[in-house]
């Protein structure tokens, strides 16, 4: 049985370190499931293909505010590029 490999870019690793503990745990759970079943998980995991400029990238919601953005690469590799909290204030300001 082939497993998926989850990679983290250094910036995303920093972001994860700064994220709340609950998000770190949730991310760990997501990584574990992805290693076994791949990125398209059933249940409450909202895996979404992004559109527009970010076509080709995917996001998964870790909670209402936080999400991980990743890319699916050949040979069952998943590269997590950003772990980010949605900043409603900055969106409203523009």
């Amino acid at each position: 049985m082939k497993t998926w490999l989850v990679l983290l870019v250094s910036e995303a690793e920093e972001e994860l370190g700064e994220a709340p503990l609950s998000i770190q745990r949730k991310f760990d759970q997501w990584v574990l499931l992805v290693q076994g079943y791949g990125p398209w998980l059933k249940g409450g995991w909202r895996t979404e293909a992004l559109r527009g400029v970010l076509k080709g990238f995917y996001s998964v919601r870790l909670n209402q505010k936080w999400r991980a953005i990743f890319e699916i690469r050949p040979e069952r590799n998943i590269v997590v590029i950003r772990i980010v909290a949605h900043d409603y204030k900055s969106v409203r300001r523009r």
Partner: protein
Amino acid sequence: MTIKVFVGGKVDFGKLFEEALKKAGVALQPGDELKLKVKKKGKQLEFVVIKPKYTSFADEILKRSNKLASPAKVYKPNISTGARIRHFRKEAGLSLSALALRTGISKGSLGSIENESRPAGLSILKRIAEALEIDVSILVD
């Protein structure tokens, strides 16, 4: 970024600021904020350009994706073996008894493996991994 301008007499702030920006060679982006500080004594004006925290959400993602040659490390989740088994079992929608039936291991033993009051050997882990349809390496901490 701070741009300092010395003035005297009446001042048209708009013109003054435009000229200052040209001199400094600064291009403003949508979302940038400006702050104006006035120091009366030296007749000095300070324009402070504040860049927003997230300049462009998409730009940052594309930038990181393009320079992916920079080291991307394999991430290993910090979860113990017992918790891993429980996590996969719940994800598969199986109860302890259902997993016990599939693996041929008693419900009590499975419970104690999940709670880590009893270590699991490789043969047991293999049986559990087969029942959960995953690779055994994922279950090993």
